[in-house]
């Protein structure tokens, strides 16, 4: 993957950098197929037909390619498409790449483009992603006892981890006070509870050959585009459904998971998602975070990469980047932040939890 952050390179160049690194790592020159994840390249960069554009850009013009999109979880959706193609025997190797380039546009324009993944009626009320996350956070504070300190500690921890990750957008640590006193964005959410606008790309190679890490399970869960159609606001049914499918495929449950990458686009989402995936009992994730259970040296390290909050969130790159981080961890390649684990979980949220994914990875002995 590429370093995330403000990048001057074009999106095709970023994706090529990540894709070529993944091919090199796999010892492969030409994959059987290419799956490209990009959420809003038309709006951000003005270019379309992204599967062909990327294939042509770095020497894979004659390789069959498709583009996959499920809003902010597009990266994992692309992994799923590649996984299914190999499982069906259509291809023996698939290069999965994803990326986004958006920091060259003004922030209100970026928010508006990302906001197109929200229900069109609800958008007419000014409901951006932070607005909906603010509503969810307030409801969680009311009904689940979530505290400002708990959700702020998520940001502190993830910045600590990112400081050890050379690919992260932010390498600076932040204090609990700085997070709790940062400016209000969507009451009660503050600036340091929100992920940044990042450029970047990530890639991985899927193969039917024996590899150091295997996908033990992968599951998708969906929910209504309209938040007003949901009766439950403080947990995501789409994550719960995805987790159930992934655990079912893997043949084991959350008790075997020793490491996780969680979609913390807004820091309270890390706590909600830890409970939705069954990694923490309901209502306990906040306390566990304050107690250091999810820190690098904790019982269940979460977001060793720095998460969306601090590694950064280039939309379609994110779901792939989560799996790349877990593969590096499982292979003992996460220099400076290495933990000991054999089974890992990645959870990705698309839109306002309309299209979520859970992936389980296992290191081969």
């Amino acid at each position: 993957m590429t370093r995330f952050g403000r990048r001057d390179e074009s999106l095709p160049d970023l994706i090529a950098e990540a894709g070529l690194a993944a091919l090199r790592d796999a010892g492969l020159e030409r994959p059987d197929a290419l799956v490209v994840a990009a959420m809003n390249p038309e709006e951000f960069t003005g270019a379309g037909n992204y599967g062909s554009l990327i294939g042509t850009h770095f020497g894979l013009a004659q390789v069959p390619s498709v583009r996959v999109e499920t809003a902010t979880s597009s990266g994992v959706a692309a992994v799923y498409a590649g996984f299914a193609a190999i499982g069906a025997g259509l291809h023996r190797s698939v290069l999965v790449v994803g990326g986004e380039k958006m920091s060259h546009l003004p922030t209100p324009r970026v928010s508006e483009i990302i906001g197109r993944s929200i229900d069109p009626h609800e958008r007419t009320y000014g409901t951006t992603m932070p607005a909906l996350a603010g509503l969810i956070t307030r409801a969680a504070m009311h009904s689940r006892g979530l505290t400002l300190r708990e959700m702020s500690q998520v940001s502190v921890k993830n910045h600590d981890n990112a400081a050890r990750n050379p690919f992260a957008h932010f390498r600076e640590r932040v204090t609990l006070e700085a997070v709790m006193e940062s400016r209000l964005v969507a009451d009660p959410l503050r600036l340091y509870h929100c992920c940044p606008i990042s450029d970047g790309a990530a890639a991985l190679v899927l193969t039917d050959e024996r590899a150091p890490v295997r996908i033990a399970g992968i599951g998708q869960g969906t929910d209504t585009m309209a938040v007003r159609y949901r009766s439950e606001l403080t947990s995501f049914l789409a994550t719960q459904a995805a987790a159930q499918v992934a655990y079912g495929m893997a043949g084991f449950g959350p008790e075997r998971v020793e490491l996780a990458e969680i979609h913390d686009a807004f820091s309270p989402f890390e706590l909600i998602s830890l409970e939705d995936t069954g990694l923490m009992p309901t209502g306990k994730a906040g306390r566990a975070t304050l107690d250091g259970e999810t820190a690098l040296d904790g019982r269940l390290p979460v977001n060793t990469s720095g998460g969306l909050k601090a590694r950064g969130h280039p939309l379609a790159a994110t779901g792939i980047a989560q799996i790349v981080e877990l593969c590096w961890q499982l292979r003992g390649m996460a220099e400076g932040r290495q933990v000991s684990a054999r089974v890992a979980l990645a959870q990705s949220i698309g839109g306002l939890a309309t299209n979520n994914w859970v992936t389980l990875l296992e290191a081969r002995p």
Partner: protein
Amino acid sequence: MIVQAIGASRCPRCERIVVPGARYCPDHPVAMEPATVPGIGEIVSFTTLHSPPEGFKAPLHIALIELEGGARLFCHGQETRGIRIGSRVGVESLDGVFYFSHMSYADRARLFWRRAGAGGEKVASITKSLAKGLFQGRSGGEG
């Protein structure tokens, strides 16, 4: 305060009601039927946006409200002072945009009489929260 009827749709299969009206049920591939629901409900959650998107002025108050009958809708409001999750609010549609307003004690008292005999528990809880509000000396929202 006059309770406004809000346009909605009902699914003939699952009886689910959605606001505003929609052509198809989100959970069943069947056409919905027109319906109306009273513009009274409870705050599910709310937020204030300090950097709202283009076309809106800061601070922008947005609330998710559950109307009687179960349909939820997004609303704008003049302010969120005195509003809590669970607060009773009135909802009205102006030029196709929904607005919520905190119900004053006079509004609640009117509702009380309108509903006396309808649902004992609800009446009791309205009376209780009215009494609690008066006891604590909080100024009621202006309905």
